[in-house]
């Protein structure tokens, strides 16, 4: 239960500037996810909070107290590692009790805490086993148990689910969320998986090349990305991007590209106005496209040729080509479409995005 404040945080390794001026305020009991591609600086940032990496410049404070020079053990934090980092020569019980023993808790208290945490995580039957006798999911839980036993102020998670298979990952995600709701401890979670970020985070922080791109609630990042990177990173399948020219015609503004000509919705007209006569990048999510019906206005529809049909059961992904542009659309599972057929798609005018071609910022 604590606030964590990152102020002008920087990390340099010789010539590599891994973390650049990160400013972040994590509120008490918040579950914040740092997400981004490999090398974006998220793990480095987490390790600086843990005290495992030296801070090049800037300040980290926990509950108002600057911890820059404090050793990890004095920061009252707990960490769950990607590879679990369980002590292979100790039993599950000893793994979980280790931190408490180092802090000189008395035996009854250790016993109480370990058993309670084991119950919460459903591993009380495994206490005498050694890590190598456990499955991946079980090891993950022991790693979690080791962290919660200490009742720390902040939980730190370093891609804890990456080593689990897909089905297990989904299951553990839900359990983690439940655990957080129950324990209500501040948590900082690092992952490269945007699905984990969206489902787990109270707030999500997208990072790239050491810089925070955007932070906010998941749906905010989804609906109002501030730049092309965030737009492409969040959401799967990724947003479709088409370079278009803005052409004033017929009393309005049109986005024009080979094989594609759509009208710019009135909401967006004012912002896009100054790009008239120039090129911008149009972004539209696969779920914002649908097979055009009679009710869709012509100016919001365009023709495509189907290249690949991916039936997923709950939906169909269509890989289509409009002129020179490849796009992906998510359509109703009942749609009857075949490869090489022509299909007319319409987009939802409320869900169009535009980006400056140079700065990639949202328009």
């Amino acid at each position, binding site marked *: 239960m604590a606030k964590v404040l990152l102020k002008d945080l920087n990390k340099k390794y010789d010539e590599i500037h891994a973390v650049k001026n990160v400013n972040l305020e994590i509120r008490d009991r918040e579950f914040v996810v740092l997400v981004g591609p490999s090398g974006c600086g998220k793990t480095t940032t987490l390790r600086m909070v843990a005290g495992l*990496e030296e801070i090049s410049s800037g300040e980290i404070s926990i509950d108002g107290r600057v911890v820059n020079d404090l050793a990890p053990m004095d920061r009252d934090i707990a960490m769950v590692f990607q590879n679990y980092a369980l002590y292979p020569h100790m039993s599950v019980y000893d793994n979980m009790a280790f931190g408490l023993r180092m802090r000189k808790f008395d035996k009854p208290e250790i016993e109480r805490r370990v058993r309670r945490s084991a119950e919460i995580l459903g591993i009380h039957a495994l206490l005498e086993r050694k890590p190598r006798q456990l499955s991946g999911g079980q090891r993950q839980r022991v790693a979690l148990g080791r962290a919660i036993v200490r009742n720390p102020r902040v939980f730190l998670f370093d891609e804890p689910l990456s080593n689990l298979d897909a089905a297990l990952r989904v299951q553990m995600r839900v359990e983690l969320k439940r655990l957080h709701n129950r324990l209500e401890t501040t948590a900082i979670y690092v992952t490269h998986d945007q699905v984990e970020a969206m489902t787990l985070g109270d707030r999500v922080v997208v990072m790239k090349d050491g810089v925070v791109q955007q932070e906010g609630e998941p749906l905010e990042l989804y609906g109002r990305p501030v730049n092309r990177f965030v737009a492409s990173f969040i959401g799967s399948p990724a947003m479709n991007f088409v370079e278009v020219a803005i052409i004033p015609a017929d009393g309005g503004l049109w986005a024009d590209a080979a094989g594609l000509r759509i009208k710019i919705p009135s909401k967006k007209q004012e912002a896009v106005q100054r790009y008239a006569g120039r090129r911008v990048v149009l972004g539209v999510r696969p779920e914002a496209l649908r097979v055009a019906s009679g009710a869709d206005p012509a100016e919001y529809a365009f023709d495509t040729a189907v290249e690949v049909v991916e039936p997923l059961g709950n939906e169909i992904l269509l890989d289509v080509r409009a002129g020179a542009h490849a796009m992906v659309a998510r359509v109703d599972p009942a749609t009857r479409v075949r490869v090489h057929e022509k299909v007319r798609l319409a987009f939802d005018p409320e869900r169009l995005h535009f980006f400056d071609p140079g700065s990639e910022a949202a328009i």
Partner: protein
Amino acid sequence: MIEGAKWKKWLWFYLPMGMFILALLFPFYWMLVTTVRPDSELYRPWNHPLYSPFWTSHPTLEHVKNLLYETLFGVWMWNTMFIALAATLISLFCGVIAGYALARLKFRYAGLLGTAIFITYLVPQTLLFIPLADIIRDYRIGDTPWALILTYPTFLIPFCTWLMMGYFKTIPKELEECARIDGATRWQAMLYIVFPIAVPGILSAGIFAFTLSWNEFIYALVFLSSPEQKTVPVGVVSELIRGDVFFWGPLMAGALIGSVPVAIVYSFFVEYYVTGMTGSVKG
């Protein structure tokens, strides 16, 4: 990383590290300085006012020349090189095929034989040298290089075998099976697929064996008697001391130059050597 201030690093790391390096390398420096120091400076007692241990102002090559021209040092070098190479090759040959057999083939006595080879460590050279001296004489190879070329493998082969066993075990069986499906016999698969991949392991074993051969002393001391047959370690220790008089200049020159071949081989193949050494410990 998990630490604190800068000065701590100096105290806990640089200082001890520096002391280790100094202690471990100083004798070699001493060897070098003594080799080039003229006799007049060499034989100054330690409490002589002019005792300057760490350098000399009149470096000379007289000891080296003495060593190379007045003694049989060149012959010893040649002997040792020849013996070491021959013994290494024999040991590698035996070790590679034995290692393959024990690692890959399933046969009834595999475990037993593996242990038997391991148990040869029970009988170090210093336990066997007396009866072996008799045997060597019986076979009429006493005072010839063959006495050593045939006996050195006894302590080189077990090591080569384990190393190669460990190496072969890391080569996936699928590679051989694929080759055999492609038409190779077991023998061909071994020769053309497995052995080439194991070359780094073979190199490691070979280099380690080479240095071990150079290091052997008691067999060489006991089985060789004529000065022309001796190896460098034996020659330097026995021929450069007349009675009670130690000719330290040539002695150190001999020690220094005698160390060079091994040092050179080692320096080119450090990684292989370390792999060889740690492989035998871990395997």
